C-alpha cells in the first residue's frame, strides 16, 4: 500500500461538498476551501457539488495519485452517514482508509444556522480542526469477529412469528421467546382484518402452527428474557422460563383438567376476552393457542397458593401426568449472534379520558372489546349486544382516544381509523344499528384503504367530523332519555350537536409497553421521547438500532398495521441473515492500547472497563488490554494518570489538535 510518506511530510487534501443546495445554500463553500488551502500541509483544497457521488470519490482518488496526498479531509454530512463511503474511496485511492477525517457541516451547521456568515465561519472552524487532527492519524487495520449463527426473537406477536419463520425457513436456528402462555399477540384477538375483511384467525393460526412444528424454531412461551450480555455476533442471553405447572411435552390439549377444576364456573377475568368473560385458574388462553397446552395461573390456583386443593385436575389428567405442581422457575442461558425485538404495544387505557365515561357507563366499550363481542368464539358467540343483552339500535364510534392528544399521547396510532371503519362495517353486518363515526381526520393511506373508506360511506355509515367533547347520560330532549349522549361540534356542518346512542365504541390508541424502558435497557437500545424503540435511521435503517446485532420489528418501534409489521419483521430477519451469512463483522479499530513503558501499574483502569478487557500482568507489573474484548469507549484512556493508555482513532494529540483547530478560526 502506498503510504505517500515523502520524508514524513504530511500532504493533506481537503474537499468541501456543496451537497446540492443543502450546504452551499448556507455555507460559502469556495470561501472555506480558500481558507483551508492556506493552512500548513494542505496540498489541495477543493469544493465540489456532490462529494459522495462517483465523480466526487474519483476526484479524491485522482488527487491522491497526482498530488501524493497522504491525508484526506472531507467536509460534508454526518460521519454516521458517509464516513464509510469516503474511507472506502480513500482506500481505493491506495491510502490506508484511516488517514481520513470527516467534518459534519450539514447536520451540525448548514441545516441549523440562519446566518450565512456564521455558518461559513463555523464550517471554517470545524474544517480547520479536522485538518489539524488528520496529521496525527495513523494507518490502522480492522479486525474481524466471527458471528454466532443463532438468532433470538423476542415477542410472539405477528411480527415475531413472521421473523422467526423467515429465519427458520432460511435454515437459521431461532429461539422465539414469548411472555404470555400462547403466541399470537393482539392479532389473535381480532375477528377480521382490514381492508380485505379476511378472518384474522384463518390467516394467523397456520403461521402459529408452523412455528410450533418448525424444526429450526425453539418456542419458549411463558418465558422472559432477563439478561443480555456480549455484543454483535456473540450475545449471551438468559431466559426465565416461568412455571406453567403443566408439562408442555406431555399435555395433549384435551382440556379435561379444565372441566375437572374444583371451580365449577369461570371466576377470573379472561385476559384474551379483555375481561368480558371469566376463566378458571387452569385454562387455555384461547382455542387455537400455540402451544396448545393449558396453563395454571399461580395467583389464582388453590393448590399453588395454599397447597390445599383436591387436585381434581390431576385426577382428570390421569396417566398422562402432564400436570406438575413441582415445577419451578428455570433460568436458561443461550448464545446467539443476533436479536430481533418484537415486543409490540399496549392499548391506551380509556379511563384516562374520563369525559368518555369508560368504566362509568357500561355501554361505553373499547374497540378491542367490540372485537371480542363480534368474534364468533368470543363471549357472546358473535352477538353484538349491550350489557343488558339488547341489541344496540345506534352505535357511536369515537376515534383518536388517547391519540393526537397532548394531554395523553401526541402521536397518531395509525390503525384506529381503519380499525373503526372495519368494526363499523361489522356492526352493520351483525345488527341493524345506525353507526356514526366521530373523527378528526380519516387516515386511510394504505393499499386498499381509501377504497374501504368509500365502501363504508356507501354502506350508510355516518361520519361526523369533530372530536367528541363528552359522553353523558343526562337528557335535554325526549329522544335522549335512557341513552348515552355524545356532545360534539359537527365541524363540517358548523354547529354543536347532541347525538343520543345506545353503545359507544372507543378507538383506543397504541402505547409503548409498560416495561418498554426496562426492555430498552436490557437490549441496550434507545427510545424516542414517546417511548417507542428508536431505529438507527428513520429512513435508511428502519429496523436497525444503535446496538449492532439488535433489530426491531413491529409495533414496538411505533404504531403500525399488520402488513407493515410483517414487512418490518421480514426486513429485520433479512438484516440478521446478512450478518450471519457474511460470517464475521468488521470491528472499528478504535480500541485502546497500552504503552507499556509508561504504565506505572496503578491498576486504576482495571475496574473501569465494562467489558473486563483490561487485566493485570503480575509478572510485568503492567496493565494489559485484550483488544478483542475492547469496544472502544475510551473511559480508561481518560482515567489513566500516566497517559499510558491510548486509543486508536481518538488519540490525545488528535483531540488536543482538534480543540486547537476549532478555536483557531475567530
Amino acid at each position, binding site marked *: 500500500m502506498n503510504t505517500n510518506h515523502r520524508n514524513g511530510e504530511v500532504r493533506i487534501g481537503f474537499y468541501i461538498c456543496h451537497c446540492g443546495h443543502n450546504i452551499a445554500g448556507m455555507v460559502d463553500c469556495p470561501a472555506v476551501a480558500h481558507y483551508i488551502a492556506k493552512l500548513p500541509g494542505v496540498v489541495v483544497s477543493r469544493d465540489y457539488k456532490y462529494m459522495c457521488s462517483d465523480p466526487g470519490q474519483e476526484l479524491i482518488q485522482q488527487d491522491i495519485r497526482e498530488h501524493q496526498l497522504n491525508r484526506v479531509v472531507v467536509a460534508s454530512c454526518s460521519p454516521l452517514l458517509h464516513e464509510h463511503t469516503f474511507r472506502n474511496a480513500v482506500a481505493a485511492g491506495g491510502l490506508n482508509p484511516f488517514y481520513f477525517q470527516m467534518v*459534519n457541516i450539514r447536520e451540525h451547521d448548514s441545516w441549523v444556522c440562519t446566518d450565512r456568515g456564521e455558518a461559513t465561519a463555523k464550517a471554517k472552524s470545524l474544517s480547520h480542526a479536522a485538518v489539524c487532527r488528520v496529521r496525527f492519524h495513523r494507518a490502522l487495520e480492522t479486525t474481524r469477529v466471527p458471528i454466532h449463527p443463532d438468532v433470538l426473537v423476542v415477542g410472539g406477536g405477528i411480527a415475531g412469528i413472521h421473523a422467526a419463520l423467515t429465519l427458520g425457513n432460511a435454515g437459521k436456528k431461532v429461539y422465539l421467546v414469548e411472555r404470555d402462555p400462547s403466541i399470537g399477540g393482539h392479532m389473535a384477538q381480532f375477528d377480521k382484518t382490514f381492508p380485505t375483511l379476511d378472518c384474522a384467525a384463518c390467516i394467523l393460526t397456520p403461521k402459529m402452527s408452523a412455528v410450533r412444528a418448525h424444526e429450526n424454531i425453539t418456542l419458549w412461551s411463558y418465558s422472559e428474557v432477563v439478561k443480555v450480555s456480549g455484543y454483535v455476533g456473540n450475545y449471551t442471553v438468559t431466559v426465565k422460563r416461568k412455571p406453567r405447572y403443566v408439562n408442555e411435552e406431555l399435555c395433549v390439549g384435551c382440556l379435561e383438567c379444565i372441566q375437572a377444576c374444583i371451580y365449577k364456573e369461570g371466576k377470573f377475568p379472561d385476559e384474551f376476552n379483555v375481561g368480558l368473560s371469566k376463566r378458571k385458574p387452569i385454562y387455555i388462553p384461547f382455542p387455537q393457542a400455540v402451544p396448545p397446552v393449558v396453563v395454571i395461573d399461580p395467583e389464582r390456583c388453590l393448590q399453588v397458593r395454599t397447597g390445599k386443593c383436591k387436585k381434581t385436575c390431576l385426577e382428570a389428567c390421569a396417566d398422562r401426568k402432564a400436570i406438575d405442581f413441582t415445577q419451578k422457575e428455570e433460568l436458561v442461558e443461550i448464545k446467539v449472534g443476533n436479536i430481533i425485538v418484537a415486543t409490540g404495544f399496549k392499548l391506551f387505557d380509556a379511563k384516562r379520558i374520563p369525559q368518555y365515561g369508560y368504566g362509568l357507563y357500561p355501554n361505553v366499550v373499547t374497540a378491542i372489546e367490540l372485537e371480542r363481542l363480534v368474534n364468533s368464539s368470543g363471549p357472546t358467540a358473535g352477538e353484538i349486544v349491550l350489557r343488558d343483552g339488547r341489541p344496540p339500535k345506534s352505535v357511536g364510534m369515537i376515534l383518536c382516544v388517547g391519540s393526537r392528544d397532548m394531554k395523553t399521547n401526541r402521536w397518531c396510532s395509525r390503525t384506529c381509523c381503519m380499525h373503526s371503519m372495519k368494526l363499523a362495517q361489522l356492526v352493520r353486518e351483525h345488527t341493524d344499528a345506525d353507526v356514526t363515526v366521530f373523527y378528526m381526520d380519516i387516515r386511510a393511506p394504505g393499499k386498499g384503504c381509501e377504497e374501504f373508506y368509500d365502501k363504508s360511506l356507501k354502506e350508510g355509515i355516518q361520519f361526523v367530523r369533530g372530536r367528541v367533547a363528552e359522553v353523558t347520560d343526562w337528557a335535554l330532549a325526549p329522544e335522549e332519555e335512557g341513552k348515552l349522549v355524545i356532545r360534539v361540534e359537527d365541524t363540517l356542518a358548523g354547529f354543536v350537536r347532541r347525538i343520543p346512542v345506545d353503545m359507544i365504541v372507543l378507538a383506543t390508541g397504541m402505547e409503548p409497553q409498560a416495561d418498554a424502558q426496562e426492555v430498552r*435497557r436490557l437490549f441496550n437500545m434507545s427510545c424516542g421521547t414517546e417511548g417507542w424503540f428508536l431505529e438507527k435511521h428513520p429512513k435508511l435503517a428502519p429496523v436497525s438500532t444503535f446496538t449492532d446485532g439488535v433489530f426491531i420489528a413491529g409495533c414496538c418501534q411505533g404504531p403500525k398495521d399488520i402488513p407493515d409489521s410483517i414487512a418490518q419483521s421480514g426486513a429485520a430477519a433479512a438484516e440478521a441473515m446478512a450478518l450471519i451469512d457474511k460470517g464475521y463483522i468488521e470491528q472499528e479499530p478504535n480500541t485502546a492500547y497500552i504503552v507499556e513503558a509508561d504504565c506505572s501499574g496503578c491498576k486504576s483502569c482495571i475496574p473501569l472497563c465494562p467489558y473486563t478487557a483490561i487485566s493485570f500482568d503480575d509478572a510485568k507489573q503492567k496493565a494489559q488490554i485484550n483488544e478483542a474484548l475492547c469496544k472502544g469507549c475510551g473511559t480508561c484512556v481518560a482515567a489513566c494518570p500516566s497517559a499510558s493508555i491510548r486509543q486508536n482513532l481518538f488519540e490525545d494529540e488528535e483531540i488536543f489538535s482538534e480543540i486547537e483547530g476549532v478555536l483557531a478560526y475567530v
Partner: protein
Amino acid sequence: MSDPKWQPRIVAFFCNWCTYTAADLAGVSRLKHASNARVIRLMCSGRVDPQFILDALAKGADGVLIGGCHLGDCHYGEGNYKTLRRFQMLQRLLRDMGIEDQRVRLEWISASEGERVKTVINDMVEQIRALGPLNLPQRRQDWDREMTPLAEAAGESESAEQRAEPEAAHA
C-alpha cells in the same frame, strides 16, 4: 462590557451514540440554533479527559459543553457515570480558579432529543453571553506579565540569600 462583535466560543464534546446523534437529528429536523458550539465527536462521554476541558478553556474557549447518554443508558454501560464523577471534581477545581459554573456544562441528551440539543446550546450561549468572555489566554499573559518581575525579584533575592548562606554557614 466587551466588544459588541464578540461571540461566545463553545467547544462541545458529544458522545457518538446519544448526543452526537441527537445533534444530527436536530439538523435533520432543521431545528435552528446558535452556531457557537463546535462539536468534537468521541465514542463515549467517558473519554472526556478533564484535560480536554482545561485545554479548551486555556486555548480561548468561553465555555465547554459535554453531552452524553442519560444515566443508565450509556452505550457502554456506565461510561457516563465516570464522566459525571470527573465532572463534579473538575467543577470544584474550576470554581477555585474563579471560572463560573455555567461555563462548563454536562448534559444528558439521548439520540431522540434533537429539540434538547437546540435548547441546551441556545441556553448556554445566552448564559455565557451574559457572563462575557473568559479570555484565558489573554489573562494568562497578564498574569505572566505580573508574575515575571515578581519571579525575577524572588529569584534575585533567592540567589542573594544563596550567596549569603555560605557566609552565614561559615560564620
